[in-house]
Structures are given as structure tokens and as C-alpha cells.
């Protein structure tokens, strides 16, 4: 039982990380019907910047905050410079551009920081605390807290501010929003900024667990994609819940199903993607889209 609880909690921690990245993907998908395949690499790049700040003597949380600001600016810039010109182009075209970003950012990280793996400091102690006789890692709780706080802050922003309302309006009906004075183009750019912040959070949270290198986010991106599809690409809540379910599920399966173990976790996520597409394409929380013919 103790092992089970430990696995659930550490699954929630990794699940929170997958959920943040999945939410980033869903944010951009909802606003522009685009999948940003570079989302993970953007998070990786931000994490390298955070490490650089920490190594130059910044306290962890200052570096954390500064990285989020830079990630936001970077996300907005990327949207303005390379995504804006292909706005309204076929999905295939935009996907190709984000793949270009993926390759270029990965190469740039190799160029600047090299390919060796580095350890990334954790904001939280890896000591264990005992709750009800079961030892839990403080770090796991910290990761869960940070991921959920990021998601909650974003929710409050979208729900209770005027800019948030504009962002939602631009996503639901761009043409009508433009008529009532919402600057839809800038809303898309802001959406990229927020998604980039979420990616940076997931990068900085996962780095202490898996070590930092330019390819760090590839498996995380696959899990995030699986989480987003599981929850329904349309649904922000679904992305977070999908991430948590996937994190816990993968952990339990790795522990209790010998055949899958650690090695088959990635293929398992792939099976989840195909399974959901086959059985319930709209995901757990998505609505079935009715296409106008």
C-alpha cells in the first residue's frame, strides 16, 4: 500500500509536468487550430536560460521568474515573426513551420550549450516526509504545487480579466471578436506567450528529474501529446486531467506490470494516443465536432 501511494504521488508530479505542456499545446490549438510541435523545445531552451542565470549566481526563484518573463517574450516574438506570415495557411504548412522551429531551437541549444547532460537544481528538497507512516518526497509535492499553481493562475487570468476575455473571444469567433474591437492578431501572440510560459514551467520542473540536455523534452512532449489527446484537444481542463491520469497511470503500470516496465512507457503513451483516436476521438472532455459540409 505504501508503495502504491508513493507511486501515485510521484505520478501526480510527473503528470502535472505533462499536464502543463499539454495545456500549452491545447491553448494554441484552441486559438488558431495549430499544433506547436516546437513547444517542448521552447521549454528546453527556457530551461537552459534558467540554468545559465542560476549558474551566474541568481537565487533559484528569481531565475525562475526571469525565465518565465523571457519565455513569454520569446513566445510572443516567435508568433509575430514566423507564425504570423502563415496565419490562415493550411494546417500542414503551419505544422512544417513549427517543425522548422523544433529543429532550429534544438540545434541552437547544441550550438550554445553543447550536448552533454547537466544536472539542474531543484527548488525543493529531495528529502522524504512521513505522512501516515508512508514516506513521500517533498520534491514531488513541490512539483505538483508549482504545476497546478501555474494552471490555476492562468485559469484566473482567462476567467476574470478583460484581456483573458479577449483571448477567449478571439479563440471562439475571431471574426466577431474583431468586429467588437478585439485585436485578434495580438491575442494569438499573447496565447503563444502564455503557452511558452507553461512550456518553460514544465521544462524547469522536469529538468531535476531527468537531467538537462537539448533532447530532454522529446519524451515529455510525447506524453503531453498523449495527455492532450486523452483529455480532448479542445479542452484545457481535459489537458490537465489527462496529464495527471497519464502520469499516475504510467507510474503504476511501470511498477506493477512487468512486461511494460520502464522501457515500454513511451510505446504505451503511443498506444494511448491510437486507442483514444480509435474509440473516442474527441477525448474524455472534448465535444464531438460537427463539421459543416
Amino acid at each position: 500500500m505504501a508503495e502504491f501511494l508513493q507511486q501515485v504521488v510521484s505520478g501526480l508530479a510527473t503528470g502535472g509536468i505533462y499536464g502543463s505542456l499539454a495545456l500549452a499545446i491545447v491553448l494554441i490549438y484552441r486559438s488558431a487550430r495549430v499544433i506547436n510541435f516546437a513547444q517542448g523545445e521552447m521549454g528546453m531552451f527556457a530551461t537552459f536560460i534558467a540554468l545559465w542565470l542560476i549558474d551566474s549566481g541568481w537565487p533559484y526563484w528569481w531565475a525562475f521568474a526571469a525565465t518565465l518573463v523571457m519565455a513569454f517574450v520569446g513566445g510572443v516574438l516567435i508568433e509575430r515573426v514566423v507564425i504570423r506570415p502563415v496565419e490562415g495557411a493550411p494546417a500542414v504548412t503551419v505544422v512544417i513551420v513549427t517543425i522548422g522551429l523544433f529543429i532550429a531551437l534544438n540545434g541552437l541549444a547544441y550550438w550554445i550549450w553543447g550536448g552533454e547532460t547537466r544536472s539542474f537544481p531543484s527548488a525543493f528538497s529531495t528529502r522524504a516526509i512521513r505522512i501516515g507512516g508512508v514516506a513521500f518526497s517533498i520534491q514531488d509535492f513541490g512539483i505538483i504545487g508549482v504545476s497546478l499553481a501555474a494552471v490555476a493562475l492562468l485559469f484566473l487570468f482567462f476567467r476574470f480579466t478583460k484581456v483573458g476575455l479577449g483571448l477567449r473571444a478571439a479563440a471562439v469567433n475571431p471574426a466577431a471578436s474583431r468586429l467588437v474591437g478585439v485585436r485578434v492578431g495580438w491575442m494569438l501572440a499573447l496565447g503563444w506567450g502564455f503557452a511558452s510560459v507553461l512550456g518553460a514551467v514544465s521544462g524547469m520542473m522536469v529538468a531535476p528529474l531527468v537531467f538537462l540536455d537539448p533532447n530532454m523534452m522529446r519524451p515529455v512532449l510525447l506524453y503531453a501529446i498523449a495527455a492532450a489527446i486523452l483529455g480532448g484537444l479542445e479542452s484545457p481542463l481535459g489537458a490537465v486531467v489527462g496529464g495527471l491520469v497519464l502520469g499516475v497511470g504510467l507510474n503504476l503500470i511501470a511498477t506493477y506490470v512487468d512486461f511494460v516496465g520502464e522501457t515500454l512507457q513511451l510505446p504505451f503513451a503511443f498506444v494511448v494516443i491510437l486507442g483514444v483516436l480509435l474509440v473516442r476521438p474527441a477525448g474524455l472532455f472534448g465535444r464531438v465536432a460537427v463539421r459543416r459540409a
Partner: protein
Amino acid sequence: MSQRRVLLRAARFAAFAVGVAVVTVLPHWLSDFRASEVAYVGVYMIGILGLNILTGYTGQISLGHGAFMAIGGYTTAILVGHHAVRDLWTIPLAGLVAGGAGLLFGLPALRLSGLYLALATFALPVALPQVLKKFSHFTGGGQGIQIFGDPDYTGKGYENVHVLGQTLTFNDWLYYLTWTIAVVLFVAAWALLAGRAGRTFRAIRDSEIAATASGIDLPLYKTLAFGISAAFAGVAGSLFVLVSFSASPGSFPIVLSLYLLVGAVVAGLGSLWGIVVGALFVQYLPAVSGHISNHAGAADVTRGVILILVVLILPAGVAGLIRRAGSPLTNRAIRRS
């Protein structure tokens, strides 16, 4: 048929004939090592050809064609390495196996919009290496499978090959093998795309709704395009393994799939004429960008930036350039006559 079309067709046949002639005599001027390098160009050409049928002509994107190359490659590696099957016979078999896998994969993934397909195909090459490591009994695990016996073998001085009364060095043999198949598949793709199936594919690409309204069975043709495209990738993977003498989980990384896409975009989606350039780009970009900077990652930065620039500035790729450069010529010729 208008005069212009006759002229265009003649120009195409001439270009094709010149291409085949160049491919035939090229090894005379190439060192043995270069011959095997150019053999890889043929391999990538086949892969890009398959991807172009899917993405360029049918409008469905695949970010995981490296995985179908892996399936074809492992088919060859297992049959040659473990069961001592003659290498030549495994090539069509690799195409069939990969094509079958593509059909199976396409069934769930293609019911939905192109973005879902992109997501699902992206997951394929990320997940596949783990599967290959797990079932090490068949796949040799992380070590992979060495074919042609000697694992330390570097490719030089391998016994000569006798074909059709000619004696070739082993690398020249690999060169002719890949390029013969590449040319045959190029013609096959050309014929396929010029006919009914090609017309149907393009109708789907241009408007799925209009295609459905004209009575096209959308899932059938999309899955068919995916299967054919995967079969091309399978043949490419099989040849890749034959040229590199081994198959391992690291032979087919996720970036291979993305590089194929880069090659297809550079070549020009929806046209076959730039494909050689796309394949050359995939093979020689690291060497060329190495002249500018030797930093790790410089090649990828160049690749990524070029990919984005091509999409933004030159959406039709090299093929579009060729067409643009060629059209005044044909126009002038017609006017003069």
C-alpha cells in the same frame, strides 16, 4: 494536345533521360567511398518520394516516416542477418511489410483531421526505439543487427560483385542497386500520380469536402496514400540497412523523419522534379554547413531556418524554381515556331 504541352512533355522526357544517363555514368568519376555516399542520396530520394505522395499530393502530413523506414530496414536486417535470406529478395518484402503497417496505422489516424495525423505520426518514431530494444530476441536490442557477417567491417575492400557480366566494387554495386530502384520507383510514382489515383489524391488535398461530394471514398484513398507512402519508406529503409550494413534503434531517430520532411519541402511539395535536390540536401547539408561552422548544432540551425524560409518565401520549393525558370523558355520556343 497543345503545342506547349507537347514541348513540356518533351522537355520532361529529356530531363529524365539526362538524369538517368548521369546516374549511370557517375560512378566512373566517383571514389569508392563517394559511391556509397551517393547511394544514401538514392535512399533519401525514395523516402522523400513516398512522403511527397502523401504530403505533397494528398495533403496528409507524416512526421514519422523514419519509423516506416525502420520497419522496412528491420525486415531486411532480420531476414538477411538471422535467416540468411538473399538481400535482394528482402527489398520488396520490406516495402510490403512497411506498407501493411502503414495501412493498419492509417485506419485510426486518418479518420480525423490532418493535425491528429501529425500528432499520431510524431509519436511513432519517438516510441519505436523502445519497442525495438524491448523485443531484443528479434531485433538484437540496443546493439541492433549487423548484416554481412563481420561487425568490424568498414565497407572497404569487400568482395566484388558480379552482375550482368560486369564486375563491380561492393560500393558501386550498392550505388547501382539503390539508384536503379530509385529510378524505377520514380517512374512508378509518376505513373501513379498521372493517373486516376493521382487525380483523386490531389482532389482530396485541395478540398476534402469537394472530393467527398464528387463521390470519392475519402478514408479509402487517404489510407491507400498512406500505405503506398509507407511502402516507399519501407524500401528506402531496407536499402538504408543494406548500405550501412546494420540496423539498430539509433539508425532511425526521430530527426530522420523530420529531415525527410525538410527534404520534401525543399524539393517542393506536390511536384516530383525537385526530389533529387531534396535528397542531396538531406545527405550533404551537414558537410556544407560544416564549412561555415563546426559547432555542434550548426547543421540543425541551418536546416530549421531553411525549412522555415522555404515555406515562407518559396512554397513550391526547388520544383517551383525549376518551373519558373523553365516557363519563359518554353514560351519563347513556342512564340518563335
